[in-house]
């Protein structure tokens, strides 16, 4: 698909998105509303230009601004008229756009606070360092005092401004009678500052202003990196298509139709559901006939026919015909709400995962505090000099301050997230990477995860291209997955010049078209060939026939294809000693061939609750499960599993629940992510080893009382750089290293 070329895909116009645009916009000024659109396919300078020109030219638009980094467009428009047709205009320009939910207030408040704190700390640290260098190189006592005072003046506001992030978190932990990494950091920094201030008033030779501020600076770098990683993944995931219905057209008693947000729909309301819309709440059909795509809801890949009286589940997509439905449940009690409740229950049931850095902190902090306390007591007993004992105790606190923990872990995880990002995999946060490194079982969903979830035409090579052309021209009038597959198959062929005078869709059966006196039919064999004598001769129920005035032109077969590299990915996982399974909501007859093709055990026709139970059972037997799934029915299982992955095409609720989201079609994202996570875990452990080695050398020196501010600055910077350099060694995804004992089955091919 070209980037900026005019719509290569055939138009699928939403039935009138005006009200929806209005619902998702907000007032930013008098008479001006703002709408945010997510346009995932923007990726070059020409796209910016095309979009801004197209939108800017619409009547009523005040300004349109593309953000290339976040792939979003912000449009401001005059609210005295109805919303301009943004989505349609973008469609014509060749861009698929989605409405973006506007968040209540400043979305990156925390990040910009961190960056500002980092800037202040960096500024203060560099200035104090400049002054300190002259002190270290032997300034006279008068100059030294002056410089110490200057340092104190710079350090105090910086400490108050940049340090509060740590103080706040340390205070919160202490109030809940816990301890985290920020407690020793805050105590060390504050004590070092007050002690240095006291020494400065007493004209002492040593002041640790530089050490305390540069410590803050280094730690803030780690904290900011950690935050940026999470923020980027969150935005990228949010920018993908919204799948839940936002509102619905409700028929009122007086015959008028109003567009209501989903949350206001009550039981008994009559809803007009156009083709192409998702079912907003559980409902029954009172009028019309259509087919519904339930692949995201139940995992069934074949569209389900719906007629009067059929029960529809929220989240299914209406494909072929308009329906009139009556709501039978409120949104909270609909299928979607039920899934959300199951997810919450699964969340509660899952043991809380504590990140490596937090676990290390709970061991590390008491040791540091005790060491400093012993140094204080020891020197006090040995010399009776309180000032000296305090100085040494503070030196111990500062020198052991966990740069390696505060910087090394986020640094490794940021590098890992970046490597994964390059391969199209988004990581929600660092903890997800740590959990992913531990898994030994992978449970796949089928539809949409192992397979693409959309049928493709098979054997098109041996068919008459003309017939495919005619069928595609007809199919372009329908949203049915088979029609889409036909259009896709015909995309490479020369465009056919068949013109139809009239096309009508018969929901549940197929399409009928008239061109002059010739009648074409494309659809189910028993319908399209109804007037034919040999109607009984059909091969399989998944076929569609093209019929022209009494004769069969062609017969098309479709199949849901495995994702690219599914076989290699599964083989790689199994070679690495990982247990692989398929758990699907689809029928056994559909799941079995695919599982057999991949050579893995399968569980078919599993309900959402069954998926959770399956994962819980695996976890109870001591396994760490990675769940890979895309449907609404997988969402609770995604939460229940130790770690989870979802493709970008997943239902948004599942995508938000998953720890990792992969954007590309290839399933090799799964072994790649595991490989990177394991490599990251190795580097984190090395960094801990480095930190311990550093402390083994530095702590005795500090306890002996040899740590001057110069030594503290040098060792702290050296250790920070060492762990950062180590983190940068993380390479792009490779093969997963097999678990110990699994080498026997694995011999890499040359």
């Amino acid at each position, binding site marked *: 698909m070209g980037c900026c070329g005019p719509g290569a895909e055939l138009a699928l116009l939403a039935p009138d998105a005006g009200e929806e645009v209005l619902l998702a916009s907000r007032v930013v*000024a008098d008479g001006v509303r703002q709408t945010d659109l997510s346009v995932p396919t923007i990726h*070059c300078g020409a796209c910016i230009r095309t979009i801004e020109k197209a939108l800017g030219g619409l009547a009523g638009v005040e300004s349109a601004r*593309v953000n290339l*980094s976040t792939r979003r467009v912000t449009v401001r428009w005059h609210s005295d008229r109805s919303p301009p047709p943004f989505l349609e205009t973008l469609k014509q320009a060749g861009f698929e756009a989605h409405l973006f939910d506007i968040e209540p207030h400043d979305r990156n408040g925390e990040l910009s606070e961190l960056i500002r704190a980092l800037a*202040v700390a960096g*500024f203060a640290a560099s*200035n104090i360092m*400049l002054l300190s260098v002259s002190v270290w190189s032997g300034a006279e006592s008068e100059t030294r005092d002056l410089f110490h005072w200057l340092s104190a003046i710079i350090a105090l506001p910086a400490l108050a401004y940049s340090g509060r992030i740590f103080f706040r978190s340390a205070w919160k932990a202490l109030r809940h009678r816990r301890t985290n990494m920020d407690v020793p950091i805050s105590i060390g920094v504050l004590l070092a500052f007050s002690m240095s201030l006291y020494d400065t008033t007493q004209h002492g030779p040593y002041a640790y202003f530089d050490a305390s501020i540069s410590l803050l600076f280094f730690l803030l770098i780690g904290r900011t990196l950690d935050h940026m990683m999470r923020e980027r993944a969150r935005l990228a995931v949010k920018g993908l298509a919204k799948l839940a219905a936002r509102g619905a057209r409700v028929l009122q008693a007086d015959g008028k139709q109003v567009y209501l947000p989903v949350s206001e729909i009550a039981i008994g309301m009559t809803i007009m559901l156009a083709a192409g819309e998702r079912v907003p709440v559980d409902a029954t059909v009172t009028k019309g006939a259509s087919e519904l795509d339930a692949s995201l809801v139940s995992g069934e890949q074949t569209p389900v026919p719906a007629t009067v009286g059929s029960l529809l589940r929220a989240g299914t997509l209406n494909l072929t015909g308009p329906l009139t439905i009556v709501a039978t449940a409120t949104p909270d009690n609909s299928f979607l709400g039920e899934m959300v409740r199951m997810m919450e229950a699964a969340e509660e049931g899952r043991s809380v995962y504590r990140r490596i850095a937090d676990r290390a902190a709970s061991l590390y902090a008491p040791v540091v505090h005790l060491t400093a306390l012993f140094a204080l007591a020891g020197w006090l007993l040995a010399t009776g000099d309180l000032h000296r004992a305090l100085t040494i105790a503070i030196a111990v606190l500062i020198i052991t301050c966990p740069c390696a923990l505060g910087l090394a872990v986020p640094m490794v995880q940021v590098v890992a997230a970046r490597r994964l990002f390059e391969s199209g995999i988004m990581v929600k946060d660092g903890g997800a990477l740590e959990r992913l490194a531990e898994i030994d079982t992978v449970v796949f969903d089928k539809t949409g995860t192992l397979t693409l979830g959309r049928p493709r035409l098979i054997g098109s090579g041996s068919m008459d291209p003309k017939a495919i052309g005619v069928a595609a021209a007809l199919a372009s009038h329908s949203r049915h997955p088979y029609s889409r597959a036909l259009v896709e198959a015909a995309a490479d062929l020369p465009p056919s010049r068949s013109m139809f005078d009239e096309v009508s869709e018969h929901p549940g059966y197929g399409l009928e078209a008239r061109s002059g006196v010739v009648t074409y039919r494309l659809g189910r064999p028993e319908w399209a060939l109804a007037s034919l004598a040999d109607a009984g001769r059909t091969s399989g129920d998944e076929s569609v026939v093209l019929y022209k005035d009494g004769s069969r032109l062609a017969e098309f077969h479709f199949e849901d294809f495995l994702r690219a590299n599914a076989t290699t990915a599964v083989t790689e996982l199994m070679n690495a000693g990982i247990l692989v399974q398929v758990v699907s909501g689809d029928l056994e007859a559909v799941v079995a061939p695919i599982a057999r093709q991949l050579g893995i055990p399968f569980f078919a026709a599993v309900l959402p609750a069954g998926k959770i139970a399956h994962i819980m059972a695996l976890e109870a037997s001591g396994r760490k499960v990675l769940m890979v799934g895309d449907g609404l029915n997988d969402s609770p299982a995604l939460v229940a599993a130790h770690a989870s992955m979802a493709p970008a095409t997943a239902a948004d609720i599942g995508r938000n629940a998953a720890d990792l989201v992969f954007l590309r079609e290839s399933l090799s994202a799964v072994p790649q992510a595991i490989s990177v996570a394991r490599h990251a875990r190795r580097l984190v452990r090395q960094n801990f080893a480095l930190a311990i080695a550093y402390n083994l050398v530095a702590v005795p020196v500090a306890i002996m009382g040899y740590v001057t501010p110069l030594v503290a600055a040098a060792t702290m910077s050296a250790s920070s750089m060492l762990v950062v350099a180590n983190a940068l060694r993380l390479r792009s995804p490779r093969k997963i290293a097999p678990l110990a004992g699994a080498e026997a089955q694995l011999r890499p091919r040359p």
Partner: protein
Amino acid sequence: MKEYFYLIPIAFGIGLIALAAFMWSLKNGQYDDLDGAAERILHDETDAPIRKTSRQVHNR
């Protein structure tokens, strides 16, 4: 030695100006779309600085 001390406030002042400039650019949204800025320089029409007009005027 003492006669060079006047350099200290100058150095400090320059640092402060840089810090203030960074804070301003952060607040002004200069880092909101780094990829886009790299491409926009190639467009003839978008020479003028772009202002977030309405939000800044009305939200203050």
